[in-house]
């Protein structure tokens, strides 16, 4: 692993939607190129309240000779993200990363179907960027189902639209795009796809992923999902971020979301 700790300097930290911020952080050029789906642990104040670092996916990444820029797209939900939102330009944060396994993008099929819920769009955006840059994917069709609670919660769509034309926006309340849970809309389209010709990726709230698991149950679709779990270390040491999965023998085992994940095969996950 080539993750390490970096002092990040905040270049920008803007509220791009109600309670939703885009933070651009400059780090040393030694920061390793992240895989899509990887994340950073961000230590917010260097003080002991809040105590733990917060995991945030890498939304976008770029580098030049002198430095790297990590973009984080985050929603304010509690104390830690609130403090993040208050950080001003030029202030510093400690960043540990890139962490996690990231999405497996070794072999991609004809259809790349991506289902996101809410802020789950963050890691999937980087995935789309990467796949778009790859020659062997140029012939693949990319279809994106971004779901949000309502029009006022929509984020990250502009960037997606630059990368992809086949976007089926869904909102729970129908205030934008299709009305309904994104999983329901996806399900309606499912007959378009076959397990053989489709690579499926998803990220979103647990309930959404559970619904997706139900839909895909007893089908042969492979689906890579990025999970969230409370984290302490982010590096695999504390075994705090456990998720129950079937191991190779099919026996239940606890895997670490931070080090064995955050990306898992949906079929391996044992939901409570």
């Amino acid at each position, binding site marked *: 692993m080539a993750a390490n700790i970096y002092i990040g300097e905040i270049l920008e930290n803007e509220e791009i939607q109600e309670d939703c911020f885009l933070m651009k952080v400059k780090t040393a050029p030694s920061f390793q190129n992240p895989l899509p789906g990887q994340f950073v642990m961000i230590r917010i104040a260097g003080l*002991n*309240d809040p105590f733990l670092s917060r995991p945030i996916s890498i939304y976008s990444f770029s580098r030049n000779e002198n430095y790297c820029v990590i973009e984080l797209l985050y929603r304010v939900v509690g104390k830690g993200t609130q403090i993040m939102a208050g950080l001003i330009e030029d202030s510093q944060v400690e960043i540990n990363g890139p962490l996690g396994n990231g999405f497996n993008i070794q072999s991609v099929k004809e259809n790349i179907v991506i289902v996101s819920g809410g802020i789950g769009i963050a890691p999937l955006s980087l995935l789309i960027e990467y796949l778009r840059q790859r020659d062997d994917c140029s012939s693949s069709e990319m279809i994106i189902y971004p779901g949000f609670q309502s029009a006022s919660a929509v984020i990250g769509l502009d960037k997606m639209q630059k990368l992809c034309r086949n976007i089926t926006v869904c909102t729970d309340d129908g205030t934008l795009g299709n009305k309904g849970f994104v999983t329901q809309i996806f399900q309606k389209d499912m007959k378009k796809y076959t397990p053989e010709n489709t690579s499926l990726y998803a990220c979103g709230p647990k309930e959404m992923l559970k619904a997706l698991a139900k839909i895909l149950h007893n089908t042969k679709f492979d689906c890579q999902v990025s999970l969230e779990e409370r984290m302490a270390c982010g590096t695999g040491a504390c*075994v*705090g971020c*456990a998720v*129950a999965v079937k191991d190779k023998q099919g026996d239940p085992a606890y895997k670490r979301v931070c080090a064995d994940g955050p990306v898992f095969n949906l079929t391996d996950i044992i939901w409570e």
Partner: protein
Amino acid sequence: MKTKTSPHMAVNLGRLKLNNPVMTASGTFGYGEEYAGYVDLNKLGAIVVKGLSLKPRLGNPPPRIMETTGGMLNAVGLQNIGVDAFIEEKLPFLRQYDAAVIANIYGETYDEFKKVAKKLSSANGVHALEVNISCPNVKKGGVSFGTDPKIAATITRMVKDETGLPVIVKLTPNVTDIAAIAEAVEKAGADALSLINTLTGMSVDLKTRRPHLKNITGGLSGPAIKPVALRMVWQVVRRVSVPVIGIGGIMTAQDALEFLILGAKAVQIGTANFVNPRATMDVVEGIKQYLAENKIKDINEIIGTFQP
């Protein structure tokens, strides 16, 4: 601040000789590998590995951790790969480094403690055993072992009988009189004591109106508990003559020095690793700097300097 002559940092915990008094705390540093990218493992006094049981343990169902003010709760439940897999898969990696390797061991029965101790004693590259009689997150044994001086002494004696390695006994803070337990395990042959393990705690989710942890209770660690840890180390050092290792909420060299001044011969860094993966290195460097600034040539000169 660089100084011309670096202060002498080696300490002896009885037979166990360490290059410096800074170790990792069990369960917070994995098997060393997880932090090899952040830390020069050669610069650690010792690496105490995640608690080992005879068979692999699945651990507790999630959620397992929760942040608290100045600390965290965990109910990992001693998930580990088991002593055999440790010896085969993890020990070869650890053997490469200068740091002493201390195996933290745990059993649900007396017999399990004995067997784990025996297996590790014949493994190449283990420098000491740390006997965890105090994990609050497992249903059997766990707490009751460590809160009863007689049982604590029995386990200590049994492990001693199985091993030629130095035996460190790790004490729980969830007791009325930690010094009494310390005395009992000293009498039973412990070569050193380490304290404290986590305080048992809890927190409640107002959305679900249930505890955040599936296990209901968990172990509280981090700077929140440092004052309790210091007090217990202070109570114990005056009652035993074996070396004491101070643990609990150490984030910085300053924190570590508090323990050393009270008489701890070494310290372990736990939860701090999560928040700052380089915490151990920062502590080592910070202690050196404090000694240099105060013109103290040998770390042993500062250990136990406070006498009331």
